[in-house]
């Protein structure tokens, strides 16, 4: 059984066909990278998998469960974790509270009205544990708003991990990171990918060659090439897609 399977996904924005019959599957323990020029529809695809957008036709199957018609929060409850291309954390919460909130989502009901959440040991311990995995436990009590860009990206990953996801959607996690930070994040993801299968949207080719088991090239909403990173690198369709793309 595949960890994630997408079958014949189609999405239109008015007359614009932004996802054209997209199919891909990610087996357990693998990292599938999605590359393509800007505007190819990568984030639109991620949105359809996480439920921010709904596909017009096709299916999204997570660990054997059809989640195509589920709402975003139900998909998260089903084990889908996600980070955003533009960093999205809770700015007025401390780093710890950001992560503790995600722990809360998978440990018992949150319709609890009386006991102060900040004093729940289980939540805080699990949150600190997650932060330690990302080497940012010492920043636990800093307001998220005060973090550097790189730290915020890590926090976003921490929030996703704290939900104990069975699958991770990572939308350009390296965007805007410096060399050192990128290298660190690649190491972290390399450790994670065998335990948590992931779909990685990324421009950073270093990252892709170090992390991805399979690469799909998305151009104009269509997958034009798919295969091992080495094969895709030499694929004429993939080359054509990137020729003239100034980004990378």
């Amino acid at each position, binding site marked *: 059984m595949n960890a994630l399977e997408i079958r014949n996904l189609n999405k239109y924005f008015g007359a614009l066909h932004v996802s054209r019959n997209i199919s891909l599957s990610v087996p357990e323990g693998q990292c599938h990278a999605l590359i393509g020029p800007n505007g190819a529809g990568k984030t639109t695809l991620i949105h359809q998998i*996480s*439920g*921010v957008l709904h596909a017009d036709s096709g299916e999204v199957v997570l660990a054997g469960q059809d989640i195509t018609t589920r*709402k*975003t*929060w*139900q998909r*998260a*409850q089903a084990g889908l974790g*996600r980070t*955003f291309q*533009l*960093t*999205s*954390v*809770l*700015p*007025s*919460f401390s780093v710890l*509270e950001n992560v*503790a*909130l*995600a722990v*809360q*989502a*998978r440990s018992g*009901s*949150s*319709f*609890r*009205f*009386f*006991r*102060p*959440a*900040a004093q*729940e040991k289980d939540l805080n311990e699990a949150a600190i544990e997650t932060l330690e995995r990302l080497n940012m436990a010492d*920043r636990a009590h*800093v*307001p998220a708003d*005060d973090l*550097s*860009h*790189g*730290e915020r990206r890590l926090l976003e990953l921490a*929030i996703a991990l704290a*939900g104990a996801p069975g699958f991770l959607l990572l939308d350009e996690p390296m*965007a*805007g*990171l*410096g060399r050192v*930070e990128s290298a660190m994040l690649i190491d972290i993801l390399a450790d994670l990918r065998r335990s948590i299968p992931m779909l990685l949207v990324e421009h950073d080719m270093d990252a892709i060659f170090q992390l991805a088991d399979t690469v799909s090239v998305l151009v104009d909403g269509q997958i034009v090439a798919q295969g091992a990173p080495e094969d895709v690198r030499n694929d004429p369709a993939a080359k054509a897609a990137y020729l003239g793309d100034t980004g990378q």
Partner: protein
Amino acid sequence: MIRVDRSFLLMALIFALLLAAPFVLPLVGQTYLLSLLIKAMLLAIAAISLDLLIGQGGMISLGHAAFVAIGAYTAAIGLESGIENILVLLLLALLVSGLFALITGALALRTSGVYFLMITLAFGQMTYFTLTSLAPYGGDDGLTLWSMATLFGSDVVQSGGHLYLVVLLTLLLVWWGVHRLGESRFGRVLRAARDNPERTEIIGFSVFRYRLTAYVIAGMIAAVSGLLTMQHAEFVSPALAAWQRSGDLLVVVVLGGLGTRSGALLGAFFLVIVEEVLGSFIHEWRLIYGPLLVLLALHAKGGLSHLLLPVTAPARTDAPRTSEDHAS
């Protein structure tokens, strides 16, 4: 941490003064002021519930007075039908307001921002006009009540008894309950949804369900304020549901300081006292009140609560920042 202690100290001081008032004021011949304080406390209860919506939940409602009116009218109609026990009336008021909040909230929460404001205003106006058409209960003119609710036959919950203390106790419970709610798991999700609803959904929470629950709780608290308002005024009228009342509540909450522990309470006392003091000087007190609000809005950002308890800037951490700090 110091700020927490100070805001609690301020609240303890206010509650101590309120507790002392009924014993001290009669000694100096100012019994009238007690009625004024009851008015302020009733306003504060409704305002605290609105602050749960706005301050914690980011739901700016302009129809909150409808719940006060629904609480008052449910109790008044119950009284007219021969139910005298205030606990039964309370239960009825909670049921009716809760149900109304559940239905209107489920519709209103399909929108957000200014549309949410408009739709709550519409539900408020619907309530107002429904009440004016209740001919058996006074219609436009409202309804004067000749017998008031009792607590198992005791008049302790009436103006002749210890209504003041009952209102004070209710205020204390509501304030404490809402404060605890804000810190609970539920409150945390509610605040997260206010800051970043998309992220909160992706984490795995149905923002709609949490907001709707908060909306129902806030409506029920406002109805309690309505029940006690009826008990104090011995009169109900559709004016309770007028949109101006909802506007007053909004002013109280914003003026006091959104989402602060003491804001709604300070705002309510400020409004009632200013109205009384200015009103005793000149008839056209609103001529002064208006510019006063403008001044406060301009100069007391964060509300009265921040004016009294200025927040010291949170300790900055000295970690080096990357050059991409403000890149996105």
